[in-house]
């Protein structure tokens, strides 16, 4: 008997969750009442799988600012009702990296940058607009502010404004999401490579195309 769940389209996958018996958890996207909604789901019936998915949902709320859908508590949406696809994919993957025993709290909107030895700070200016500054000055500080801003633009599909500023197209504030993404924005190439490597697993290659183990 078919067990396939009707959840919309799958937009991200964690194929082996190390915190729960290597279960696979998918993130699905659907539209309800003109709002984009997301559902984390696993087909696993192993002990703890339901609780684990519940934790991932909670982590996405706390770290990314998602809210439960009014009609279905397992479905989540941004307050703006928009997609923010790349950001929610990153949010989901990061949520799945956290052990269920870890207390959850929103990430700060500032982070120490090893490359410059400065603290990078993201500040909301309202209307979805964010400005990146640092606690230092000089060419290195400016270079890193620019890099971090471009990183946020790439990770969250923001609109670039003047140097050091970017905004969410929806015009809504997304402080928790920015706090989460700030760490990745310090080195966005690593984040992208990680995502590409995860996606490349599980593709069978003909013997002549295989990389040697």
């Amino acid at each position: 008997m078919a067990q396939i769940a009707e959840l919309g389209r799958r937009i991200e996958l964690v194929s082996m969750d190390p915190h729960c018996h290597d279960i696979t958890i998918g993130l699905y996207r659907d539209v309800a009442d003109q709002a984009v909604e997301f559902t984390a789901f696993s087909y696993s019936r192993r002990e703890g799988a339901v609780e684990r998915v519940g934790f991932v949902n909670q982590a996405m709320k706390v770290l990314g600012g998602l809210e439960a859908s009014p009609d279905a508590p397992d479905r989540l949406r941004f307050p703006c009702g928009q997609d923010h696809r790349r950001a929610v994919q990153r949010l989901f993957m990061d949520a799945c990296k956290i052990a269920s025993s870890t207390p959850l709290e929103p990430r700060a909107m500032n982070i120490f940058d090893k490359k410059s030895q400065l603290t990078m700070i993201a500040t909301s200016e309202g209307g979805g607009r964010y400005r990146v500054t640092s606690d230092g000055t000089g060419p290195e500080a400016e270079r890193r502010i620019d890099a971090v801003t471009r990183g946020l633009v790439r990770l969250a599909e923001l609109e670039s404004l003047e140097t050091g500023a970017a905004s969410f197209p929806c015009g809504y504030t997304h402080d928790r999401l920015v706090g989460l993404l700030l760490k990745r924005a310090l080195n966005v190439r690593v984040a992208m490579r990680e995502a590409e490597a995860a996606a490349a697993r599980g593709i069978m290659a003909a013997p002549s195309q295989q990389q040697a183990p």
Partner: protein
Amino acid sequence: MTTHPAETMSSRERVIAALRRQPVDRTAVCNPTSVATVELMDMVEAPFPVANRDPELMAALALTGHTELGFDSVMPVFSIIQESSALGCNMQWEQKDNWPTVRMREPIWKDVDDIRIPNDFLAHPDMRCVTDAIVMLRRQLGDEVAIIGKTMGPWTLGYHCFGVEPFLLMSLDDQAKTKLALERMKEATILFGQAQIDAGADALTLPDHATGDLVSADYYLRYLKDLHIEFAERLSVPLILHICGRTVDRMGYIAETGMAAFHFDSKNKPAESMEAVDGRIALIGNINNPETLFAKGPEEVRAEVYANLEAGVQAIGPECAIPLQTPIENLTEIVRAVRDWHAARAH
């Protein structure tokens, strides 16, 4: 709402008729290669790598291809390494989300005189896993669903056991030695194929990776065509030859082997492939894996299904073993698209 015409054939009847190029009630949806995914593994608690080594898990995971995805066939031999494991190759079994592979940088044979098929080849646990799984599936499915087994061809076994580069160099330097090597290795193909037929397989996929990027059409003619003719003569079920990559240059030769079908890659367009085989062999395929099934959505899957149907391809399915992270909705779309296409033409 689309009304679908009533289906008058069982899935098994449909696949066998397709392989024989006989009339069908609707085009078969068939997987000569794996449609296992990590989500299906979770559904039946049959993860890799153990689902490649335990017959009950192998059968359970294979069954989802019909019960969950709606395919007309099940194919339990997900990987391409069972024989190589039994021949003594060093294996990398990997994890749930990756394919087991042969350590081809650690070849077990250096020369043609090293080739040896062990007396207990079929009794090796990785071989018994397959035959036992087929027995279980036949018992569960009765006459309703086609069971497709898989036996690797000698070119692929050559890559696995000699290493890709040494084997290719041998084929360049010493034609007689290469032919002798293939002749000796072909017995593994026959033995494993027959064992699966005896277990209840309705058809066999025969992957032989003389792929277009490294092996020319001339090489296919020189080294493999006669062997493939022999396989078609000696194995008593329909054979489905599988070769990855751009192969339209050799499809004419393949069509002369007596094999029932050729499972073709998306690098070959459906219409040009049908023209190349000219009705002498059935085609199965050729929905693209890495771009379409894995990375795009149902609309793109449907478009490729329709292109195959419009070209007259006899059975529709993915072009090769699907990526383990393929979304289920893209796989179920294949069956939906085939049914809708036929429904539109019935009215």
